[in-house]
């Protein structure tokens, strides 16, 4: 490809773009809007997921030791627990600490003076890395001879896990729905911009242009519309993040708002460009067939 032709091609793309500025801005606007939506929901989903992971990581297995187990032997168990790769943390909670924690949970009205002795056994509080592993880990621990019982809020864990699973799948479904919608909307928009120039396409064919020759500028334009739309969207999202997230983070200090922005941006740009290109290719093809 000689330099003149490349220049011609780029000039072509630029001229087409500026000479249809109104139409192109409309298209870019649509792309931007859909990508802002997509970006927002990716962000929200990531946040919810992080939050969910945080909640699930709070689940504890309470391991009650048998009454006769000595403190030394009990501490031995720690090594065993730590050896399990699924376990994140195991904290030893002797009777005394246990009753304190219980009082915290129940409020100050749990009158400890009424107790003749501590009704609680020594215990380990075990946190696992992945909430899904809770039942298996609990079962395994329960088999240890020193352990009286390995317990967890089975009902709550079940509910949480189910909810997390459903939310996770719903999130993926919604993102998929949104992605497909965005793709359709962008593709339709680009198809309409091509439709508005179907006469030009027919003329180009009659003058002897090959299909590829006709297609290329349209594809470049589709890509440009996609990329510019995505860029605008990223700008809007960045602005929104800078404005909104700090306020949210302040209010909901217990939710994590960290999202890998660069990857997200690149993804959105890639989506814009890819959809633009594919839509332009297909749309022009439709008018080339006649």
């Amino acid at each position, binding site marked *: 490809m*000689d330099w*003149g*032709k490349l*220049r*011609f091609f780029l000039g072509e793309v630029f*001229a*087409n773009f500026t*000479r*249809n500025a109104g139409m192109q801005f409309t298209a870019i606007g649509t792309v931007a809007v859909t990508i802002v939506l997509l970006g927002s929901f990716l962000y929200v989903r990531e946040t919810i997921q992080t939050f969910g992971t945080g909640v699930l990581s709070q689940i504890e297995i309470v391991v009650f030791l048998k009454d006769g187990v000595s403190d030394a032997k009990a501490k031995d168990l720690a090594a065993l627990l730590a050896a399990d790769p699924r376990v994140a943390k195991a904290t030893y909670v002797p009777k005394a600490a246990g009753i304190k924690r219980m009082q915290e949970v129940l409020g100050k009205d749990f009158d400890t003076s009424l107790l003749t002795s501590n009704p609680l056994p020594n215990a380990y509080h075990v946190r696992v890395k992945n909430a899904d592993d809770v039942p298996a880990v609990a079962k395994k621990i329960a088999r240890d001879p020193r352990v009286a019982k390995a317990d967890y809020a089975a009902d709550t864990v079940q509910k949480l896990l189910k909810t997390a699973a459903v939310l996770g799948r719903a999130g993926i479904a919604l993102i998929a729905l949104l992605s497909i919608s965005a793709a359709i909307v962008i593709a339709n928009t680009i198809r309409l911009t091509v439709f508005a*120039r179907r006469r*030009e396409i027919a*003329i*180009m*064919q*009659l*003058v*002897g*242009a*090959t*299909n590829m*020759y006709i297609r290329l500028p349209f594809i470049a334009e589709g890509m440009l519309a996609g990329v510019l739309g995505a860029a605008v969207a990223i700008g809007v999202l960045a602005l929104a993040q800078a404005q909104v997230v700090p306020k949210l983070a302040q209010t909901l200090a217990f939710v994590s708002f960290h999202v890998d922005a660069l990857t997200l941006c690149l993804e959105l740009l890639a989506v814009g460009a890819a959809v633009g290109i594919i839509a332009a290719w297909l749309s022009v093809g439709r008018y080339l067939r006649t």
Partner: protein
Amino acid sequence: MIKLRGVSLVYPNGTRALDDVDLEIEKGSFVFLVGHSGTGKSSLLKLLYREEFPSDGEVIVDGIRVDTLRRGKVPKLRRNIGVVFQDFKLLSHKTVWENVAFALQVTGTRTRDVMRMVPRALDLVGLSHKSRMFPSELSGGEQQRTAIARALVGNPKLLLCDEPTGNLDPSNTTEIMELLQRVNLKGTTVVVATHNQAVVDRMRRRVVRLEHGKILHDDERGYYFRGLGQTAVLPG
């Protein structure tokens, strides 16, 4: 150059535009196609650059069977044919210069050559001063001349002109016809569909008259009305 054998063209809506036409046009000749409005002149030309397919018969241009030509090869066919469309078919988002240049660019002409050939073509039709205008900024005749420049610029082997002077004044018409004659002398086969009696009668070239999609007569060195020079009677 052109061979039609038993060619019929029936449009999807049922209109029979051409009916069993046989026609042969030699390389380097200059032919007028005349006939009433709606008699099939444009349709015949459209078959040659494959805008339309014959419903029947064979169309051969420069040794190529146009009607059965593979789709991928059509652009190449069209690049060897310059066409002045009856409705101009200018690209509305390109300037005069760009419209003319486009016909060269699609053939892969080097930019250097484009820069040389386009101004010459525009000069020939007297539009150098309008090269930066868009079609919407041109008068009817200027648009027509742009279309002519585009058809000529690539030195095609075959030049098809569909009513090329319908929007031109007599002096412009004469200039354009002289231009076509010069192009013809350099070897290009020229086919002109026209209603301009004065032009046909003055040039005294081969005249093919269509009537209801059939060839009514075909005269070497003919007049617009068979046997009647322009100075004679006008109908009506």
